[in-house]
């Protein structure tokens, strides 16, 4: 309210040049309601007893003065001026019989109420602004102390997980050992080649073990040599190159080259 008085300016406008001041004032208003409120304050009476008619006249005079000075006024201000001109004419004319439309008195009191409400919220905003703002007037602890969180790690592990981990680990170990032994596997191809070479030197029944003995230098090789040799032998029997017999279960396997493929058989 230290604000320059626009209402005075309008009246003074008749007498003196005050264009620059007025320009500033129009810019300073937050819309037509704000301007009306400021004009109303100039009446220096309680907003409850304000003369809306006088207020309307002052507003219209202000707007006309502003337009004379070719000030650019927002449409809002002009709309309000037009509405107030209408209200003024309604207030001056005798009231028509009760119709659909609200009476001029109702319109006037509604406007007064709006002004009072705006003033009330302005007052509230001012009071809020005057409160102690956090970070402006009052302050919180500048260096709050953090809550120290003791993390007590509780490890979860089940016996199942433990045994699984152990078994897997050990299995990887012996699986990798088997893969090392792969180099020591007597492959079927190797067995076949060896048998074919040997068969050429034979003429009579011989136990398979005898043929293979030179390949069985390592005990670890024994199963693979026997298995591959037996497979290769069976293959050669099928092809009619060998004949074989076994006297009883788990007894030595005998083999003999077939001189004449026609004699092939077990």
């Amino acid at each position: 309210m230290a604000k320059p008085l626009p209402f005075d300016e309008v009246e003074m406008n008749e007498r003196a040049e005050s264009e620059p001041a007025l320009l500033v004032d129009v810019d300073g208003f937050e819309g037509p309601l704000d301007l009306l409120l400021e004009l109303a304050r100039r009446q220096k009476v309680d907003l409850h007893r304000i003369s809306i008619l006088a207020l309307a006249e002052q507003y219209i005079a202000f707007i006309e003065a502003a337009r004379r000075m070719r000030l650019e006024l927002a449409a809002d201000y002009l709309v309000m001026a037009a509405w107030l001109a209408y209200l003024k004419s309604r207030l001056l004319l005798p009231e028509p019989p009760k119709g659909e439309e609200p009476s001029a008195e109702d319109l006037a009191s509604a406007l007064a109420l709006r002004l009072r409400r705006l003033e009330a919220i302005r007052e509230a905003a001012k009071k809020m602004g005057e409160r102690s703002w956090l970070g402006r007037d009052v302050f919180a602890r500048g260096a709050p102390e953090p809550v120290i969180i003791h993390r007590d790690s509780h490890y979860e592990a089940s016996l199942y997980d433990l045994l699984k981990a152990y078994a897997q680990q050990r299995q990887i170990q012996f699986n990798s050992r088997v893969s090392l032994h792969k180099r020591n596997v007597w492959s079927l191809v190797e067995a076949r080649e060896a048998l074919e070479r040997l068969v050429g030197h034979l003429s009579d029944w011989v136990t398979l073990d005898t043929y293979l003995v030179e390949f069985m230098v390592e005990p670890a090789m024994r199963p693979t040599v026997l298995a591959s040799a037996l497979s290769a032998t069976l293959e050669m029997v099928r092809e009619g190159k060998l004949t074989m017999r076994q006297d009883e279960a788990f007894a030595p396997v005998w083999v003999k080259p077939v001189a004449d493929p026609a004699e092939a058989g077990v």
Partner: protein
Amino acid sequence: MLPDMHDDVPETLEDEAPEVSHVPDHGEAMRIAEALLFASAAPLSVEELGGRLPEGADVEKILQDLSELYALRGVNIVRVAGKWTFRTASDLSFVLARDVVEQRRLSRAAMETLAIIAYHQPVTRAEIEEIRGVATSKGTIDTLLETSWIRLRGRRKAPGRPVTYGTTPAFLEHFGLDAIEDLPGLEELKGAGFIEGRVPSDFSVPLPSDADALREDEDPLDDDLLQPLDMHQTEAGEE
């Protein structure tokens, strides 16, 4: 005149047993509450304090005693947004204000808009404009949302389903209010009938409410509102 710093505090640090044995040591509980309130970066609720105080401690009494104890000191215990915290005494702002790191000043329009949101919440943008008699720039609402003092509450069950705005606990904390009912001048506004809605407008607002629960005439926000830009576009379209 000044309250004694140790009123009602049993002298626990001497080797005497407290007189009433079934009540936990009040003085010690006060010290713990003091430490908690001092250390915490955020205000603490009675429940939060109670959970950290010795079993059976009378939290309300402790807070009352602490408030009195610190009432005239350089730091006070205050209740904001329903929780308790230490704040520097407001009369000392002149010494501390120098520390302020460029506190952003709210424009008059923003301050008024904030006040309308606070006193009339839940409130739509159209309603704010009706009270102020002027269009609200998008920037004003954005600035307020940025302060985190206001929030989008929901949508009014009305044509165009406009967004409703309300204040946040941060608003209460910033303005040192315990609850929205403590807004300054609320009684006067109520008395003048401005809050109840005996105003010549198409909306009727009872007492302001910043409760999370939506009013009867509010719908929840839609997912599309997670984009503030969309929100303002939608709103602009409504008017």
